[in-house]
């Protein structure tokens, strides 16, 4: 990849890829929330 436009497209693609972080964080939050709810339920 040597064309300037292709490289700019690569920069844009890498920037868009960072949006995945939001979903990945949400997955982690949901799992932790399930663990906490399970704890509350089991220790009632």
């Amino acid at each position, binding site marked *: 990849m040597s064309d300037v436009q292709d490289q700019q497209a*690569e920069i844009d693609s*890498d920037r868009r890829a*960072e949006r995945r972080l939001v979903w990945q964080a949400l997955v982690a939050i949901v799992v932790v929330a399930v663990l906490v709810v399970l704890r509350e339920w*089991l*220790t009632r």
Partner: protein
Amino acid sequence: MTIADVAGTILAVVLVALVAAGAVPALVALFHFLAIPFHAWRNHYGKARPMAPRVAIVIPAWNEGLVIGTTIDRLLQLDYPKDRLRICVVDDASTDDTPDVVRDRAARHPGVVVHMRREQGGEGKAHTLNHGIRMLLEDDWMEALLIMDADVIYRRDSLRKMTRHLADPEVGAVTGYVREGSATKNAVTRFIAFEYVLAQIASRRAQNVVGAVACLAGGAQLHTRENLEALGGAIDTTTLAEDTVTTFETQLRGRKVVFDPHAVVLAEEPPSLDALWRQRLRWGRGNVQLTIRSRRIWFRPSRIHGLGSLAFGLSWFSVFLLPAFMIGASIGLIGLYLLDSDLAAVAFRSLWVVVGCAYAFSMIFAAQLDAEIGRIAWREILLFPGIISLVVMVVAFYPGLDGWLLSQVGVEMTPTLRATLDLASYAWISMSMLAAWGVRQVDRTRARWLTVPLLYLVGFGPVLCAVTFAAYVAEARRLDRVWEKTEKTGRVAG
């Protein structure tokens, strides 16, 4: 209320505070990880542009005959204009075939591969680098300098993905994701692979968001010529943490340091616990030296740099002082147990609920950041704190589980057994570091076949904490600052 009552109350408050302080590193880590999603918006890609400055790559090499040929060959395959690339190997008086390998490549690629020979070597990596940097600064050809290690393998697009950030004139240096790349992975390298996910593509993204980067990876640091000249045209040689010192000095002079998680390079990491310990002890001692040297920076916000921010300071010290926090939590819990065992139990459960939630969030999040490492190292991700700590965490999270489990195997939870388990759990928080030191000792004996099972039992996290503690001790005893080379075999995948 008698004086004894007042003294008892004060002591209880101090002990509770010690336990609560034990949760600080976990809370800071949680805050740090919660900052990562903001990298979706707060990143440097908006200011990045396609750019191909004339890059000199400097590779310090001492007896790197096994790896240097492959490293140069892979650099020659970089997707980067060849007339804008110069690969300079600074041969630190090697006694193996390093000079022959480099001269062979230099003959085949004249003007691109350069062999720089130091006849008197052995002073360490920073001195070797400085020899090369001095020579490169003698003419105007170099516009940017890439510092790397002899065993690091660059992907074709790695350099291009780093240079694009230099389009922003405020940037002084760029670093990439150094990924564990051993062709044959074992438990130690898998633990390291995941540790690098935590320390690099997780933590450095958060540092990009906060606006202060802790360290340019030694195997992938790209500097502008202006930055290098502002640093005095040389890398620091007074500490064992030359990479971190360079990172700090760059930012202290008002230049940005950028981490690009998509610029990936592969490195072979120590395959044994003993080799890892020696490498990390050097890093740890360097960090002790740097922490003391930077005493006028911490928690003093500046308009010039972000190193003095509260967020960066908390992040730095929560890792740097982790052994102290762990020892403090153990002392607090055992002291509380002697005062009031019920209060100790509540404090212990509260501590582990906070730590457990922060740990679970960090691990689940980080495991997704590099899906391949997540797949290869799932056991090491799960057992990062060790089986014992994991059991303690689960039991603290779900009180009564231990009693129920014991009843399933016909063991009754007597008061004596309860007290023994409680005290052992309280002590384990700090004793895990001693156990980790013990595992390293086992790795130096003929019983090293026990290292891996013991490592899973004790955990990799406690090993890192124990090395940090050993670094405090080594610096306090002013042991010789010897630069020790990590042995490499050249078996890197990819």
